[in-house]
């Protein structure tokens, strides 16, 4: 095969891998096609009896990947699993020293205390390839 062709293919593949990993085009698409990505990051928080609940779906990763919540209120995290066997079930939230392999289906409620503004809480899965973040404002 011609060397130039090989180089072009190589660069094409590298760009493809870059898109998969950094995922910018795909997240952009989501926000432009349906604004639900932005909306859901608001919808996934709910305040009941003075406690803020942030709900995150756990299956093949975490969704939403970025949530926005209010700071200064006692906050609990609801991790929803539904037939989840992959890495996202093995949850690590380092800032509160939380480590657990979630039940394959169900809800796990995790107390986050009263988060301060500007200090995000980040969770990763055991192997580290899935993560989510909650920003407090």
């Amino acid at each position, binding site marked *: *095969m011609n*060397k130039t062709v*090989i180089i072009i*293919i*190589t660069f094409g*593949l*590298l760009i*493809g*891998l870059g898109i*998969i*990993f*950094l*995922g910018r085009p*795909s997240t952009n698409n989501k926000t432009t096609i349906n604004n639900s990505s932005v909306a859901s990051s608001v919808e996934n928080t709910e305040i009941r009896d003075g406690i803020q609940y942030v709900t995150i779906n756990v*299956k*093949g*990763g975490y969704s939403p*990947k970025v949530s926005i919540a209010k700071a200064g209120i006692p906050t609990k995290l609801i991790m929803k699993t*539904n*037939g*989840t*066997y*992959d*890495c*996202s*079930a*093995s949850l*690590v939230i*380092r800032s509160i020293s939380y*480590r657990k*392999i979630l039940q*394959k*289906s169900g809800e796990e409620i995790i107390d986050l205390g009263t988060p301060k503004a500007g200090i995000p809480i*980040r969770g*990763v*899965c*055991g*192997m*580290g*390839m*899935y*993560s989510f973040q909650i920003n407090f404002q």
Partner: protein
Amino acid sequence: MDNQEKNKKYILHVSGTHCASCKILIEDILNEQNFIEKARVNLKKEMVEIETNDNMTAEEIINILNNKIETNGYTLSVEKIIVEKKSNNVLWKAIPIGLVFLFLFFLLQKSGILNLGIGGETTPVTSFIIGIIASLSSCLAIVGGLVLSLSAKITQNNNGSNKKPFILFHIGRLFGFAILGGILGLIGKAIEINFIFSAILGLIASSVMIMLGLNLLGVFTKSKITLPSNIFSFFRKVEHDSWAPLLIGLGTFFLPCGFTQSMQIAALSSGTFASGFLIMFSFALGTLPVLALLSFGSVSFAHSKYAPLFFKSTGVVVFGLGMFALLSGLAGVGIINPLFNI
């Protein structure tokens, strides 16, 4: 003194040396020939120094010796064979081939096809299906990458079609999973696989993959990455010992993989030895087809004419998977922030 005067010294070039063991192997074969008094291999310079008591010319000696060592993949020559260009061409082909596989693999992860919901009770049948999914998932980056790199390296070292270490590895994995699963079922909720322990094991595995990937690629032909001698003796053990491959197979139980961990929890809560045994056995059985394809596939590729291309492409794939596993593993233990989200 008399003897030394009769002896002729030749310095020949040798090509095909890819490992520290090659020195020993070549010297052993050459010293077996009765017309050779002494043979010494210099791996760095890729040269062989031969003392002979025969009156043959260098070409004649090379002809005889090449017949002996060519089956092992080495070639002697008077002039240094310029392989640089040829191997560079192979490398140029291997990079896109390796990248295609990496691309398809990560595309599969991103596509979400693997996120089928499997609800209900964990039965041996569901664990078998989960095993199949796991063997295609990002767990493949660690377990499959390790299997692939070890298989490629071992076949490259061996040059023989020795399938025994791979068969032993799979037996060790199947029954190791089953027995450990049974123990988990028996003990119940009392123990949990230590998170840090498995994370460190994962980091070690990914470093090994990166190193083997670079070694298979042979990018640095000038300062060839020869594996440290203790790792080399480890490979000899894997090749010739029955216990080492069995133990590695068993050790994959502790490698970080979300699916494995979920199944371990299922085995834990199953309550009896028999049920834990069955759950983990069927899970491991589900992962077998892909892993067997990787290990036995490398053996058959290594004996085809595409061997150099196969080793280099494997090097690209293994290096990529190793980097992926290492970076995610570091994020998992909190040393770095997550760089990506598959």
